[in-house]
C-alpha cells in the first residue's frame, strides 16, 4: 500500500551540521498492517513519519502510496490518505474553537467550500460519534476544545482521525504526554479502532512492552536505519529481553564489521 524505496534524508547538507537522519530506508507497508516502531532518541522515527506524511521531502529515494508517485506531493494533498496524531495533544485540534467546529474541520478532507455542514442533524451525528468515548463530550459540543484535558483532546483527535477513515494512520508517541491512566485508555481505544475499522497503522513508542503487545509487525530503528523488521509468529514470540538482546547483537555485529573494515 505504501512503498518507500531507498529513502534518505539529510538535514543541513554541506554544512558542519550535516546530519543523515534517514539512511537508505526501503519499506513496504501492507494493507492491514499494524506496525509498531521502536528506537532510541534521534533514531529517525519522527523524521520517517514526516517523510511519509509529506511535511518533509526526502533528499533521495522515492515514495508511493497506492502506486501513486508521492515523493514530492505536499502534505495537505497526501492528507487524503494519511491520518496523523502527534505526541503533543494540542497539535490535533484547535484550542480556541468549539468541539463541533473542530469536528466540522475533520469531517471531510480537502478544500472546504461555502456549504454549512453544521446544523442540528450534524450536531446530533457528532454527539452520537462522541458517545462511545464515554467522556461526556457529547454534551459539550459548544465548549472550546482548549477546556478539555490532554487525554480527552487526544482521544478526540483519535476519534476524528479514525472517522475520516485514513488509509494509513500514523501515531507518533501519541500517548507519551498523558498520565499513565489516560495513556492506557487512549492506547486501548487505538487498538479497538484499528481492529473495528480495519485500519493500516504505524505506531512509534518508547515502551518496548507496548511495541511487543500491539500490532502484527515491529520495526526497530537506529541511526536512520531500520535494523529489525519482524512480523507474524516471530513477532508474537518476542519478549522485551529478546528485543533488547537483538538490538545489541545487530549493533555489535556492525561494530565488529566496521572494525574489520578499519583494520584491513
Amino acid at each position, binding site marked *: 500500500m505504501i512503498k518507500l524505496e531507498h529513502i534518505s534524508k539529510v538535514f543541513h547538507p554541506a554544512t558542519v551540521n550535516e546530519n543523515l537522519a534517514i539512511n537508505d530506508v526501503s519499506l513496504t507497508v501492507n494493507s492491514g498492517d499494524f506496525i509498531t516502531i521502536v528506537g532510541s532518541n534521534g533514531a529517525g522515527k519522527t523524521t520517517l513519519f514526516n517523510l511519509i506524511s509529506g511535511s518533509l521531502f526526502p533528499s533521495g529515494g522515492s515514495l508511493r502510496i497506492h502506486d501513486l508517485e508521492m515523493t514530492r506531493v*505536499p502534505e*495537505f*494533498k497526501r492528507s487524503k490518505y494519511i491520518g496523523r496524531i502527534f505526541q503533543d495533544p494540542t*497539535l490535533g485540534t484547535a*484550542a480556541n474553537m468549539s468541539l463541533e467546529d473542530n469536528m466540522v474541520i475533520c469531517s471531510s478532507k480537502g478544500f*472546504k467550500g*461555502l*456549504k454549512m455542514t453544521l446544523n442540528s442533524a450534524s450536531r446530533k451525528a457528532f454527539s452520537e460519534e462522541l458517545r462511545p468515548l464515554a467522556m461526556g463530550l457529547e454534551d459539550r459540543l459548544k465548549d472550546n476544545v482548549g477546556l478539555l484535558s490532554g487525554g480527552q483532546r487526544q482521544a478526540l483527535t483519535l476519534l476524528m482521525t479514525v472517522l475520516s477513515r485514513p488509509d494509513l494512520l500514523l501515531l507518533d508517541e501519541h500517548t507519551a504526554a498523558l498520565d499513565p491512566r489516560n495513556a492506557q485508555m487512549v492506547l486501548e481505544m487505538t487498538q479497538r479502532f484499528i481492529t473495528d475499522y480495519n485500519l493500516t497503522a504505524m505506531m512509534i513508542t518508547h515502551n518496548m512492552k507496548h511495541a511487543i503487545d500491539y500490532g502484527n509487525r515491529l520495526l526497530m530503528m537506529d541511526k536512520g536505519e531500520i535494523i529489525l523488521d519482524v512480523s507474524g509468529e516471530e513477532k508474537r514470540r518476542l519478549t522485551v529481553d529478546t528485543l533488547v538482546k537483538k538490538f545489541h547483537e545487530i549493533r555489535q555485529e556492525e561494530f565488529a564489521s566496521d572494525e574489520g573494515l578499519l583494520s584491513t
Partner: protein
Amino acid sequence: MIEGILVDGLIFALLALGVFISFRILDFPDLTVDGSFATGAAIAAICIINGLGIFAATVLAFIGGAVAGAATATIHNKLKLPNLLSGILVMTMLYSINIRILGGRANIALLRVDTMITKVIGFGGSLPREYTLLIFMLLFVGIIKILIDIFFRTDLGITMGALGNNEQMIKTNGVNPETMKVIGLSLSNGLVALSGAILGQYQGFADAKLGQGMIVEGLAAVMLGEFLLRSNKIFVITLRVVLGAILYKGLMFFGRYYGYYIHMTPSDLKLITSVLVIVSLVIARSQDAAGQRRKERR
C-alpha cells in the same frame, strides 16, 4: 456629537473587522492595511469622479483592497518572506500605486459630485443629516457583520478559524493553508478598503496617505472590544469588534476635545493609540496567565 462619533466608529468598524480577520483569525499581523485603506478611498473617489456610479465605486474599492491582500499573502506564501515583511512591502508599493490611481496626485477632492454620503442624506429628506447617516451606517455595517458571521459558520470559514490557532491541523485535514491565507487576507483588506472608500466620501476627499497608522488603530479597536465581551461565538466576537471600534472613536474624540486640559494636542493621539495597544496587550496577557493558573490548579 454622539451621532458623529457613532458614524465615525461605524465606518472605522469595517476596518476593525478586517484587522480582526488578519490578526485574530489568521494570526497574520498584516500591515498591508495602511496602504489598502487609502487604496479603497482612492479607487472610490476616482470612480465617482469619472461617473462610474456609487455602487461600482464601492465594489471596485473592495476588490482593490482584496487584490492587495492577495498580493501580500502570495508574497508570503510563494517567496517565503515573513508575514510582517510581506505586508510592509505591499503597503509601501501601495503608496506609489495610490498616487497612480489618483492620477498622479497625492489627494483629490470630491466636490460637487454625488457620493454615497450625499445620496444617503438626500434620501433622508427632512431627517437631520447626521441621523440619516447613522441609520444608514448601522444598516450597512450590520449587514456586513451578518455576512461575516455567516461566512465564519460555513465549512470554509470554520477551517479558516482554525488556521491561526493550529496550522498543522489544517494540513493534516487536507487543506492548503496558503489558499486560506489568500482568501483571508483578501477578505480582510477588502473590508479595510471598503472602510477607506466610505471615509473618503464622508470627508469629501481621498488622500494617498489616508491609511497611515490605521493598522494600530484597528488593532486598538479589536483589543478594546475584547475587554467588553467574552465569548467564543462568532456573532458576539464580531459584535465586540464593532463596539470596540465605536469605543475607540469615542476615546479619541474625548482625547481631541478635552486633552488640552493635560496639554495634549491632536498630534499626540497616535502616541496614545499605541500606548493603548501596549497596555491592552499587557492586561490581556496577565489575564491569560491568570486563566492558565486557574486551569492548572483544577
